[in-house]
């Protein structure tokens, strides 16, 4: 045995050993555990509300990608359309497809002869069925004179009932007559009514009838608008940031510019819409309701944020790299474009994409410049009248018809997907720039 005495026993008493110290330690652990718990709770609350949101939207909206169709045999008789062999698109478009449909109804339900009954039968189909028939003939004129079995779009009321979103009668939210319900049940028994994939929702534009609407009009409008916005805001923002960061003398004037950029970033977006209306449309005479003007307005709105993000990214480039470039005899511009900008690019891109995501969701300023019009064509360019996805959603949400509810939710899903794709693209782009060290 050695007689070495360990400290803590004899000698100077340590303040970090003993009951008091143990108590202090326990309090510290408790505080840490509490903090961790609060963090977890906040995170869970956020996740939960996100899940609820997504669940509501998806459960409401997924049925919009299917639409109820009814199987029926139609005859494309030349009397109603045009003589067999006609290829002229205009004449084919002008055919009486309503008559084609009505004749088919008469054949299928030959027992229904009273006027009321016929009207109820016609009510099973909306305008979508006629458009469908017309599109078939235009795509394939050889159909004229032939009898074919087709699945035709039912009326939105039928669709809502068949999908079970509403009951039959008015008391349960539906708009079906008893005879219509009987016909539908009969069709169901024969397998002649079913929900089928509805591609038109992804390829069409706006319509009065919920079964005929599509999001492509809004999507293309958003794409054109954002493209213009990006093409303006990105280069202008970078140029402004470079000037302010690298060239501008630090004086009263640049200070004021700086403060105002920060203020502009906080201005409500409607104000930019009013500005766009007054400047671009009223003063410069740009065509209203077009993605061109929308892009200009959103670019004005995004510019301050892009400048702020770009300045932060440029400022974050280490001074040692600047010194290295200058020390070897690079001019200021060479230093900026060869070294500073490439290193700042990932940060600038991140900031820009976040701004673009915000711009994608903007509604208010675009309402001001007339991008809220009812437009049934998919825009083909930045000069066509168009609407954007969020405005489209806003208009559908405003529509009292029951069929628009699921369309609204489905359009929100498309908007979210659009945003995800955009952000994924941004991350990919950023990674590419980062890989060049």
């Amino acid at each position: 045995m050695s007689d070495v005495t360990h400290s803590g026993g004899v000698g100077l008493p340590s303040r970090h050993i003993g009951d008091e110290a143990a108590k202090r330690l326990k309090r510290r652990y408790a505080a840490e555990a509490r903090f961790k718990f609060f963090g977890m709770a906040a995170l869970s609350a956020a996740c939960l509300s996100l899940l609820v949101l997504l669940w509501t939207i998806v459960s409401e909206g997924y049925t919009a990608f299917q639409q109820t169709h009814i199987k029926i045999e139609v005859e494309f008789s030349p009397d109603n359309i045009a003589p067999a062999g006609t290829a002229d698109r205009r004449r084919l478009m002008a055919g009486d497809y309503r008559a084609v449909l009505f004749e088919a109804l008469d054949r299928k339900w030959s027992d229904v002869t009273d006027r009321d009954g016929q009207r109820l039968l016609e009510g099973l189909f909306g305008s979508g069925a006629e458009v469908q028939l017309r599109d078939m003939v235009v795509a394939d004129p050889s159909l004229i004179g032939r009898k074919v079995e087709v699945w035709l779009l039912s009326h939105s009321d039928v669709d809502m009932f068949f999908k079970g979103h509403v009951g039959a009668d008015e008391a349960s939210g539906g708009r079906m007559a008893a005879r219509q319900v009987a016909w539908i049940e009969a069709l169901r028994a024969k397998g002649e009514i079913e929900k089928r994939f509805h591609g038109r929702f992804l390829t069409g534009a706006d319509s009065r009838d919920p079964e005929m609407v599509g999001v492509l009009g809004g999507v293309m409008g958003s794409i054109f608008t954002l493209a213009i916005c990006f093409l303006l805001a990105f280069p202008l923002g970078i140029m402004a940031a470079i000037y302010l960061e690298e060239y501008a003398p630090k004086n009263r004037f640049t200070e004021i510019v700086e403060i105002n950029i920060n203020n502009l970033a906080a201005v409500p977006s409607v104000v930019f819409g009013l500005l766009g209306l007054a400047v671009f449309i009223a003063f410069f005479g740009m065509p209203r309701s077009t993605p061109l003007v929308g892009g200009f307005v959103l670019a004005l709105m995004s510019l301050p944020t892009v400048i702020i993000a770009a300045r932060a990214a440029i400022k974050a480039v280490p001074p040692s790299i600047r010194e290295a470039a200058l020390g070897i005899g690079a001019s200021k511009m060479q230093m900026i474009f060869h070294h500073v900008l490439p290193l700042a690019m990932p940060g600038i891109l991140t900031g820009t994409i976040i701004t673009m995501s915000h711009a994608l969701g903007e509604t208010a300023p675009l309402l001001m410049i007339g991008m809220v019009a009812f437009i049934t064509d998919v825009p083909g360019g930045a000069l066509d009248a168009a609407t954007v996805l969020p405005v489209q959603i806003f208009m559908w949400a405003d529509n009292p018809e029951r069929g628009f509810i699921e369309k609204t939710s489905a359009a929100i899903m498309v908007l979210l997907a659009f945003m995800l794709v955009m952000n994924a693209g941004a991350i990919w782009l950023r990674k590419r720039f980062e890989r060049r060290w």
Partner: protein
Amino acid sequence: MDAKQMDAIKPAQFPASADASPAKMAVKVACRDVNVHYGTKHALKGVGIDIRERQVTAFIGPSGCGKSTFLRCLNRMNDTVASARVTGSILLGGQDIYDPKIDVVQLRARVGMVFQKPNPFPKSIYENIVYGPRIHGLASTKAEFDEIVERSLRGAALWDEVKDRLNEPGTGLSGGQQQRLCIARAIAVSPEVILMDEPCSALDPIATAHVETLIDELRENFTIVIVTHNMQQAARVSQRTAFFHLGTLVEEDDTAAIFTNPRDERTQGYITGRYG
């Protein structure tokens, strides 16, 4: 000077100044009455010194005494500091570098710089070297660039270590290798003078030894000015040493003379470790 002090620094410790009379070399940079103000702060006060060709001049002195400030006057890096104002005359090969007709970009090609912290570009080793020659138009074909890369890396004693990975990032090298890469980058543009601001202060002793050997070799072809806070380093690598204190140049002499027989009391105090 007490006997103990004389013991500590023997003439044998000045291998670099063993050659006869370093003061006989031609003057490369002649500075007269150089003053620098940062705003109202007078950071450098009337410095006059001749920096001679093909030898190493060391600037020593306590931190904050203006060594870096003076060094950065020699390639006009102070131009990038908005508040800095430089007066006096600095002649490089007889030409005033603060003459408005002088192009700064060209000046910095003639007077290269190596910084305290290794700062390779975040690009490949090859790109680091060829960047300078490319922007100055010193070469045009791939073969010429390849030749410059090899010559510069050999000149910086780095070629054998990196010749198989020229396309890997320069930032992936060790600290000492990075600093030699920065030296290679500086000599790639064939400067006349190389300024080094505490080039070894971020390096470990082995990497420091490498760089010091390199500096001694570079003296054959370049005029070198090195700032160091390490007096042993000044003694090892330099032929001439200048001692700065509170913004003034206190004395400048052959390195051996400064360390064995300082004329000024402040110099003596500094090298004996009384303050610093």
